[in-house]
């Protein structure tokens, strides 16, 4: 994409509010949060624990619905879609990386990477999955099960799984949170390099300021509001 071109908006949060009821009354976790994210941009959502980062991520990805407001992904309102509609949109446009990896324990590394492609009915899936697994440096571990892999290796499999379906938007929730500093560093390098080469939009939730600084933009949350 040429420098200077007006970038398309891929993700838009409009007046997002999330309230939950608790024994002590209604708790407002997010309060009127709004922003736009352009295609190919990398954005870090930062803030203290309990600031509402993960809730915001869940709403942006359509994993949960806001009490008020809306999210537009590729211009489509997530609140207007039903659960299967949101799932279908995620399948085509969204990838995920989690703090605790969430690999399927009964599938080996390659099968975990294959999963999103198989779910989309991709026929040439295996070859592509092997390429992506090779790009995270795990070709030789492709037949290993998650329990046979180290934390860093598990997250690399998760990254391969996130990129394999060429998502428009990649959501990462504390991707290095469960890893030691040097492993975390290497995983972050891998994440940003794949992001750069694929042109994917990256939305990253972290409380790690160093990691956040590697993103083009930081959105800081405090007590449910954008600063």
């Amino acid at each position, binding site marked *: 994409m040429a420098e200077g071109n007006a970038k398309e908006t891929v993700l838009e949060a409009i007046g997002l509010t999330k309230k939950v009821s608790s024994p002590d009354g209604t708790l407002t976790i997010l309060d009127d949060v709004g922003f736009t994210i352009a295609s190919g941009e990398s954005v870090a959502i930062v803030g203290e624990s309990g600031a509402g980062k993960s809730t915001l991520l869940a709403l942006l990805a359509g*994993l949960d619905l806001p009490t008020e407001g809306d999210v537009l992904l590729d211009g489509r309102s997530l609140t207007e879609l039903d659960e299967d509609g949101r799932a279908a*949109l995620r399948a085509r446009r*969204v990838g995920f990386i989690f703090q605790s990896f969430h690999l*399927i324990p*009964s599938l080996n590394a390659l099968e975990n990477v294959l*999963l999103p492609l198989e779910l989309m*009915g991709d026929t040439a899936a295996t070859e592509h999955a092997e390429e992506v697994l090779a790009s995270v440096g795990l070709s030789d571990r492709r037949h290993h099960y998650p329990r046979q892999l180290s934390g860093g290796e598990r997250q690399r499999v998760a990254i391969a799984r996130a990129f394999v379906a060429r998502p428009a938007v990649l959501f990462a*929730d504390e991707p290095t949170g469960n890893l030691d500093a040097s492993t975390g560093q290497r995983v972050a390098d891998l994440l940003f390099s794949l992001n750069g080469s694929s042109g994917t939009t990256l939305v990253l939730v972290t409380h790690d300021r160093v990691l956040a600084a590697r993103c083009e933009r930081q959105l800081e949350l405090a007590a449910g509001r954008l600063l």
Partner: protein
Amino acid sequence: MSERSSAFRLGVHSVLRDLKAGELRVLVAAVVLAVSATTAVGFFTDRVGRAVLQRSGEVLAADLVVRSNRPIAESYAQKAADLGVESASVTSFPSVVLAGEASALADIEAATDGYPLRGLLRIADEPYGASEEVQAVPPPGEAWADARLLARLDARPGVSLEVGAAELKVTKVLEFRPDQGARFVDLAPTLLINAADVARTELIQPGSRVSYRLLLAGAPDDVETLHAALKPELGVSERLQDVRSAGPQIQNALQRAERFLGLAALVGTLLAAVAVGMAGRRYALRQIDAVALMKCIGVSRSFVLRVNLSQLATIGLVAGLVGVGLGYLAQIGLAALLSELSGTLPPAGLGTIFTGLGLSLLILAGFALPTLLQLRDVPPLRVLRRDVGPPPASALLVYGLAVAAFLALLFHQAADPVLASWVAGGAAGTVLILAGAGLILVWLATRVRSSAGASWRYAIAGIARRGRESVLQVAAFGLGIMVLLLLTVIRGDLMNEWRATLPEDAPNRFLINIQPDEAAGVEALLESRLGDLDLVPLVRARVVEIAGTPTGEIEFPSERGRRLVDREANLSWTSELQSDNTLLEGDWWDAGAAPGLVSLEEEFARDAGIGIGDELAFDIAGERFTATAVNIRSVQWDSFNTNFFMVFSPGTLDPYPHTFIASVHVDDANRGLTLDVVRQYPSVTVIDIDAALEQVRAVMDQAALAVQYVFAFALLSGIVVLLAVVESGREERLFESAVLRTLGARRRQILNSALIEFTLIGLLAGVLAAVGATVLGGLLASRVFDLPVSFNPWLWVNGMAAGVGIVATTGMLATRRVVNHPPVEALRSF
């Protein structure tokens, strides 16, 4: 690749992986056990059932009999031969036989080769001498005579008898023929001759009273086919009789045996189904994370559903096949074991294989599918927040499917709607009570948690925290223990009650035809050797009108009703209801009641279409009298006491000619007694029903053996239930234990609190299970098996011991494994 096939592949794939990884151990074990238990029981009861039927066939000396008072068409035997069914024919007629000067009325039975097709004849060289069992008929020119006939003729074996125009030499004493029956109509003693000699006797003339029987026996399916083929061809005088329409005693016994087996198999299957439900739930819960992830990366609810269905079908087929195989092996072993006791059993039917596979899918669909269906609604948000799970499934779906599967199982297994309904109602009631008690326990736990010591506090808090799980555990443990206790009730108390209805000293001889002037003498003679006994009066009469309508004009509800009404009936009178009779409708008459009241046996009243208040008119040798039906009673026919379809109030029958009957138990030491009676009072006829008694006892023994076997299988199912329940909470315990140990709890503290928690749950489940088993056992005894209800205090002791012992032990074993698991590993996997 289409989305459909990729869902299927993923489903199958994940199940195979989980199988390898041992994730499915309990679920597969539960399904395998349910299937192998029911198929083994199915294979086995099928075989024993057929063996019992075959034995019962001995009452007819065949599996199927065509009876007629005209010669039976050759074509019937030909049809039988075409189907590979054996046949033999018997012609019987009464005739006076002569031995020199002496004469006596005999029932001549002329049989062809092959008789008897079922059972054996018992013959001896001397009256009451050592006997041997044979399947043969006397050669032409010879005859085998009943000892009573020889006594009346004052003759001994070797004598030549004049039978009509023929002279036949008695070569053996006929002690027993399987089809001799225990009815009073078989009055005259038997003379068995070869069918080839019938013509020579010249006794069969137009107008002679002759009855013809075509005996048929073969493989059950062939006999069934033949039965169906012959039925439409029967002439007016011809009648088909099979084992089920044979004597009421054996029929009664057979029915109960089938019920016992059906019930035992049923509860075993239900137990296994509970295990499947518990294990299936755990399996589903373990899928939540994978499903949340799949939904997060964009799969639809229907895709999740297809994956789940593929998983279930794979588990069902794999476990079903293994189960059927194991069931078949178990049944072979058992049949080998049993062959010592009951002779060679007929081979197992193969239909059971399909039943087994179907059962496997049915159980999974009913008991595991509902939880698995919930997975469709796992929120994808769970990938970020572990505390969110699927919303509770629709109660209608979960309970609807389970109830539907439960009922299908019940009615398939029990094949008896009455029995099935009682068990269904009992199980439902027990589950409700157990769940209610579980809720109370959880509620109490939330109240008292702070007032006890550390281990207690944690244990009680555990019960409260795992509220749903605790209720489920009380219900599942309780149901499991209840069913096990119920089985012990069936195996022990009910079977014993049944056997007690036929005690060692049950009457084995009927003395009939005792004339009023001989009554005192016969009674004295019998009492001198056997102790106190009562003679029962007997009047023979014919029913001529029911409620004002001549019997010839009545449309009877059943063919049996017409037959029973048309024949000359045995009537008696008594002031008190006999102990083996139960009043069903109406009132019993007082001691001083007016004459003219009659009490009817339930099935007779039903088949003849007679109700309370109907007036019956009788004909006794040309004299007419009437009586009003005032009550209906059931009769326990297999008690072998003297019983009557119609019993009158005292005074009704006294004016008419009557005789007396005595039923006595004669042991080996007194075997000659009946001979003495016959010598002293020649008109008295003695009927020996030892053989019929033996037949009923044999049915009881085989049923008992089969129930024992089923019990062993049910016990295994019970253990899997307990394991499944304990396993169901394993993940949570693993995590909690890891956290506790990280916080510094000692293993002993964790084990102690688990012990307290499981003991409380086990105690509650055990006590309630004992209540359930007592109530349901009592209801089954009185409503289904017509047996007296007995209270068994051991049930309570066993219930509590089983509850505490089994639940605490299995719970501890599981917790031990949890505690031994390194906490770091446990925490890492959460």
